[in-house]
């Protein structure tokens, strides 16, 4: 069923067919990786990154590439938004990749990373369970975004499916919350799925370690019932507490990374001959990553806990890469590494968005802070400052959709994200049922009637040619096309449910009643459409009343019409 696959992250994205939208969560990001993503993923891309780690985009591919900064839920000086996830969706299902890799250069060039990939089908109730967990996590992030939330909201609407069948799965998407840590999630998982079973071995890989674990290390042995613990660590990190707890220490034989190690984070709990339990995700095996809750100042982390065949990770723990420290090596061990991840948080970057009211807001992450001016050495731009974030509506985009200004005398060029363009691209990609629906006003009745009325039938030879069908005929065809689109579609997102509702409520006339009847007819033939069916039924009653159609007549009619 599920396999951590040894292939490339980008290859994995390419292999997912007809993606309609994609969401990426990352701590850090770099332009190279974004460019590569644009090459391999044809769907609109929404990237959420820690707000201290952004890059300035001077090209956003017609607003189909949007980077939005996000703060962790309970920010302090040391924690961050640390989740790493790729979610790709098409009309049949989704694929998600969760693991240790950021969208940064290092992750793809120098670090040893691990990620878990899972393809989910909307037809499979277990898959839907995991999908919904991921979407619920994304939904919950909404208040943490900085700036306009329109694009994120639109994305969520297209991600949410309200009417799919769900059954709890043994695979779990997990994340820490205000009062539960990743450790708690693992504990719950084991209590539920491995109750009474004792693990035979525990393997933990973490590039970073805590200064002090205290009782935490004993906790791991307690919940697994095993003291056979192996730690896979970078060279030179602090190992005293592990040594004292009797853990085995493994380190890379020949570390290639400039930072002397690997970046993968995992916990593998082995059970004799049975399947193993695996956590893969963004959390380091540290207090800030693994053991603390958000209220306790943890990073915002996520990951998966799954059951895997016993030997699944044998290759990864291959002894050609890892070396177990021998007693003499342990004796002579020298700590050379800092204990926590320390990244540059002083580089400024900017992003810009257009709101629904057509106002362009430019944001700058400006930690130092530096002087922001319209021209080189020129006048300072007026705006608001909220912590390290400066925002202004003073700048107008040029003809190529960019705003230009200066930070500390260095020119900055920012491409403005336009929500309507993004939504349009989303709809085109997802073959939204309303894509191309022309509604009731698709015919210029004035032109058609004019052709007949203005000069009577003796029109000149250069008069209007027939470009349109008469209004009702064209509307009939428009509705036909829409119902055909619906017939082809298997699953309906919240976005489409809302569109249906908007459309049937847009007018109070006979044509709309016809549309609603036709929609009801087709939606009733499908599963996963309960909400829209209800909306149509309600609307039909209202419209019939408006048109003076008796209740009894309507009931008889709909009963027969819908057969």
């Amino acid at each position, binding site marked *: 069923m599920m396999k951590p696959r040894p292939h490339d992250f980008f290859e994995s994205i390419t292999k997912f067919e007809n993606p309609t939208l994609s969401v990426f969560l990352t701590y850090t990001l770099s332009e190279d990786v974004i460019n590569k993503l644009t090459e391999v993923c044809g769907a609109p891309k929404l990237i959420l990154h820690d707000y201290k780690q952004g890059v300035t985009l001077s090209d956003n591919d017609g607003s189909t590439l949007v980077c939005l900064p996000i703060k962790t839920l309970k920010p302090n000086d040391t924690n961050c938004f640390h989740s790493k996830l790729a979610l790709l969706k098409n009309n049949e299902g989704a694929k998600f990749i969760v693991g240790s890799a950021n969208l940064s250069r290092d992750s793809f060039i120098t670090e040893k990373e691990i990620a878990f990939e899972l393809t989910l089908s909307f037809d499979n109730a277990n898959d839907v369970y995991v999908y919904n967990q991921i979407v619920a996590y994304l939904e919950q992030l909404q208040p943490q975004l900085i700036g306009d939330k329109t694009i994120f909201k639109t994305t969520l609407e297209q991600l949410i499916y309200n009417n799919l069948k769900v059954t709890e799965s043994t695979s779990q998407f997990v994340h820490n919350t205000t009062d539960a840590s990743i450790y708690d999630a693992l504990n719950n998982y084991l209590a539920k799925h491995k109750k009474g079973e004792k693990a035979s071995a525990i393997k933990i890989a973490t590039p970073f370690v805590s200064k002090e674990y205290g009782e935490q290390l004993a906790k791991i042995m307690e919940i697994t019932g095993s003291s056979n613990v192996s730690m896979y660590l970078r060279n030179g990190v602090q190992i005293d507490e592990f040594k004292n707890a009797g853990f085995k220490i493994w380190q890379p034989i020949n570390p290639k990374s400039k930072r002397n190690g690997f970046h993968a984070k995992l916990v593998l709990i082995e059970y004799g001959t049975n399947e193993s339990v695996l956590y893969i995700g963004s959390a380091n095996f540290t207090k800030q990553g693994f053991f603390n809750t958000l209220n306790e100042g943890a990073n915002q982390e996520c990951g998966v806990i799954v059951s895997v065949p016993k030997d699944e990770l044998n290759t990864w723990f291959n002894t050609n890469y890892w070396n177990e420290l021998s007693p003499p090596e342990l004796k002579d061990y020298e700590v050379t590494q800092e204990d926590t991840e320390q990244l540059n948080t002083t580089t400024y970057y900017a992003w810009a968005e257009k709101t629904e009211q057509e106002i362009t807001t430019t944001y700058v992450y400006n930690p130092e802070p530096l002087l922001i001016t319209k021209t080189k050495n020129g006048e300072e731009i007026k705006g608001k400052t909220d912590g390290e974030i400066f925002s202004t509506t003073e700048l107008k985009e040029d003809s190529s959709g960019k705003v230009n200004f200066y930070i500390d005398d260095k020119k900055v060029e920012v491409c403005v994200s336009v929500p309507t363009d993004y939504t349009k691209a989303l709809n085109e990609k997802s073959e939204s049922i309303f894509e*191309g629906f022309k509604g009731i006003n*698709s015919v210029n*009745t004035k032109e*058609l*009637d004019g*052709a*007949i*009325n203005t000069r*009577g*039938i*003796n*029109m*000149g*030879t*250069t*008069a209007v*040619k*027939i*470009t*349109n*069908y*008469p*209004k*009702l*005929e064209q*509307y*009939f*065809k428009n*509705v*036909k*096309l829409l119902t055909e689109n619906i017939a082809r579609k298997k699953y309906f997102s919240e976005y489409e449910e809302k569109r249906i509702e908007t459309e049937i409520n847009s007018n109070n*006339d*006979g*044509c709309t*009643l*016809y549309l609603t*009847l*036709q929609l009801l007819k087709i939606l009733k033939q499908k599963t996963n459409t309960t909400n829209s069916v209800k909306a149509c039924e309600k609307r039909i009653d209202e419209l019939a009343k408006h*048109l*003076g*159609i008796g209740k009894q*007549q*309507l009931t*008889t*009619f709909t009963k*027969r*019409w819908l057969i």
Partner: protein
Amino acid sequence: MAYIKDLLTGKTDNKQILPETAIKAQRLATCMAWQILHDYPTRKTPKAWQIYSNLRGVMLADEVGGGKTFETLAIISKALLEKKSTRERFRVLIIANPSIRLKWKWEDKCDIVTFINQTNVTKTAKEKLTYFFSSQKIITKKAEWKEIYKSNQGVWLSSFPSIPSVKDGGGDNAKFVTATDFPKNFFDWIIVDEAHALKAGSIDTAEETSKLDGVAVRKINAVLNTNDKAKILLLTATPFQNNTEELKQLLGLLERNPKHITSLIAKGLNALDKQIKELTDNPKDITVENLKGLRKNIDHDIHTLIGDENLGEQRPKMESISNKVAPCKNGLDDYLRDVLVRNTKELLTITPVPVTLTEQEQLQYLLYRELIGKKEQEEDDPKNPMFNTKLSQLVSSNESYSKNNINENKNKTINNLLDKNTVVDAKYTKLIETINEIKNSKQKNVIVVFVSWLDSVTALENKLISVFNKSNVFTLTGNTPTEDRKTVLENVANRNKKVNESHDETKILLIVSRVGNEGLDFDKFSNRVIHYDNNFNPAVIDQRNGRVYRGSNITSKNKNTQADDIEIYQLFIQGTYDQRILLIEQEKRKMKNFYLGDHSLQQVLEKIFDNDKDEQEILNVLKTITIDLTPSKNYILAKYKKEIK
């Protein structure tokens, strides 16, 4: 001025050969045809005419009753009378369906007799014509051709099935299966009546069973190939009823070297196909479906061929089609306008009467519509020929519509939702409103209501009787026995007389189905027409109008007003298929008027024949009309200018 006047007045050697009443209407057509077929080849080729260097025939394209027969008789008569001796050969073959051959058959009171009687020629000339036409030979079997008497002058009357079989293929090189089956180098003139019937099927096969298909065209080619000097006249009221390929074949018949014109047309059509493909490749373009649909109608092919939307404005120039032919200002377009010869009749003004639907009615229309077409493509689907019919019936009456294999239960379900057929009720209501608003004139109190569907006639009759009284409502349908039709019309005339005597404003209604579209005269008691149902074909509407646009309604014609107070109304339900039918008919009408109703020269000629004008005035008129004339018309004009100088 002799040349022009001779032709226009129908005089030859100062002997008039056309009846006076026919002259005005038919002189231009006759003049044009004569010019192309007889006069032009004998004169020095003007440059603009090089396009016609291979032309051996024209298509006479007047409306039914417009004078094609008389024009043909005039041309043949003029050609015959030019023969100095009976030894000079002049053999005419007329090919016509047995059913329409009556008008060519020599008998008492036939068209030919009328023509000769009314013609203002000498007694000798009349005798010559009488002898020529009365000694016609009718060939009804293929085998008879072998034994025909080979007189130098005469008329042979036959039909397609009675012309010997031709070899497969061959196109313009078509040959008879056995060369001796048909007399070689025999006919000088070939007249094909109802030439539009050359398209597949639809031919009377009473004489010899044979499928027509492309065979008919090959048969004509085979006949023409027996004498490459022969001239041909194709008679059809509806040259644009054929598809592209068929029109190409027809035009090919008019050319001695048909490759010349067919390549011209093919080039144009290829360009058209390309254009259509480009448009259809872009399905988002709203006009595409329409274009695809229109593609089936030749008029729209030509329409697009000569420049798509702005007919007449963006016509391809001849240079762009072929640089080998002499410049012809508007290319293929002018060519068509010249070889499709027609006299012009004053166009009637038709008043469209929109029926507006309420919200309830719109809902009901859409629901009914659901029972007819499931897919958008169905309109263009040849496998579903009933589609257009069903839709036409939907906007006519529930009675006609519901009989048409519609899901009866669903139909009832829709009817019950709103208690009645509100869509058609709206049209009924508008009809009654329109009838009430019409003012009678000239003691003609009858309003003729044309309906396409028999079931609608009955429905309409009942409705109208309830409003206008049984004594004022008459019907004439296919169910009226032929022998009773005259009685019906007499009853209508009598009722009209009675109403006139009582001097009241009573309206008399004559509901007529398709059966009354042709051959009946209502002009004595009516000058008001309502088209209750529409038709895609403008010829049908013209035919219907022709029932009152004739006789007593034209004789008192005043040039400055609508022909003697005729009023025509056309009902249509707005937003529905009814409107589509009307729009398509209008498009076709525009086409037809463009190719067949070129007024410019006609206007000049009207002025020339207006005795109030002096020659200087005519010259001034001529100076103003120099643009937009086809080569053929320019030629006539140039000649006239030269002569009056």
